[in-house]
């Protein structure tokens, strides 16, 4: 469930990377895209992202030539029509993260990433796992219900002794006298 947002974020960042790649700034082609995707918070990986390439084979060295890597992975159908239209699915290498092993797969059609899938998202119990702890926008209307929640304590920015007198915490403490 959380994955959708994560994937969307990944897609966005991958898209940006891809844009860079298409303009020829990322000479490492697909493998770079894949690993960067992994490193940009899809996984919340703390360590350095995978420098490896996974099963995609590094193809695409893009040495000098035209608009970045003329691609063609060793994996699936690289319908690569001459220039820069790499297609196929590419897997990043598996990374150990705080959330368990994570591997990301991207699907590329005509040089554009069309899908990002996290392949390994289960822990040893086979439960699906949350793979990103990144913050996302939170709507006030979604949390208003908590206002009426029964709380035993209150967290807020440090207040002076005077401000305490009119605080919610003071009311709670008074109730518990």
């Amino acid at each position, binding site marked *: 469930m*959380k994955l959708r947002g994560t994937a969307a974020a990944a897609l966005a960042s991958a898209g940006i990377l891809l844009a860079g790649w298409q303009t020829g700034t990322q000479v490492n082609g697909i493998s770079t895209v894949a690993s960067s995707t992994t490193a940009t*918070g899809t996984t*919340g*990986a*703390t360590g350095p992202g995978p420098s490896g390439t996974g099963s995609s084979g590094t193809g695409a060295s893009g040495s000098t030539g035209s608009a970045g890597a003329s691609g063609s992975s060793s994996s699936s159908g690289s319908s690569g029509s001459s220039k820069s239209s790499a297609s196929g699915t590419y897997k990043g290498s598996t990374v150990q993260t*705080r959330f368990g092993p994570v591997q990301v797969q991207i699907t590329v059609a005509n040089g554009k990433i069309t899908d990002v899938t996290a392949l390994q998202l289960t822990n040893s119990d086979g439960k699906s796992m*949350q793979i*990103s*702890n*990144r*913050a*996302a*926008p*939170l*709507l*006030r209307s*979604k*949390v208003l*219900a*908590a*206002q009426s*929640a*029964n*709380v*035993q*304590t*209150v*967290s*807020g*920015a*440090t*207040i*002076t*002794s005077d*401000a*305490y007198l*009119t*605080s*919610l*915490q*003071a009311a*709670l*403490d008074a109730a*518990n*006298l």
Partner: protein
Amino acid sequence: MQRISDPLPGTGGTVLKARTFECMGTVIGLTLPVGNPAEGHAGLDELAAATAVVELLFRDLDETFSLYRPDSEASRLARGELKLSQASAGMRERYAEAHEWRLRTEGAFTPERPDGVLDLSGIIKGHAIREAGTSLLALGRRDWCLNAGGDVLVSGSPTPGRREAWKAGIVDPADRRTLITGYALSGNSPHRAIATSGSAERGEHIWRVGNSAEFVQVTVAATDIVTADVLATAIVAGGTRMLDRAADNWDVAVLAIRADGSMLATPAFQPA
């Protein structure tokens, strides 16, 4: 199996009681589930004794570290009358700890003011809460909630013997008398601590990395209070970049509020 009067039926024979005292410019409160000592619960005497221990600890630390006291060791250091190498072991330990956090937050948290004066006030309240928690456990208290000016450390449950969480409300920075949301501490969560920092905060000096105060209030829940406190301060100073760094590298939940009221939250703060 005689049944003694139950102060609040349905709460396992205990009722929450709080004691407060003033120190470090704010109010510190200790809340315990209090019941009949004959049934193994803490009584009011235990609450008073536990509060006295916590208060003594806070006062000792305040005497050493307060920059509001001209005669404190911290003030003498700040005036240059004392060198760090000559300072007490406690002072040097906190300095080392604060510097460790400066490295880990890439400078978003720092123990030095822009003018170079050493200021450990960003870490000392968290340290006091941590030490108080250790003392409470040593006293045999298993269930308690300690709140120092809005920074909270809990143990056990408000209802002894159950896994029920302590619920902390989070203040709305636009209206301090309302809550924005809540967060469950202890219970099924490894998070026992929650701390909130504001961009216009008293006493705790936050120096921004860059020039904008992206967040007016940041709340961090963590397994320990110093981590929660330091990271909340660091995220106020460092903005989204520091928020992402904290979320990636520590086991924390973060709720960050911008001046326009919009919010960012890590998954633990998102409604299911």
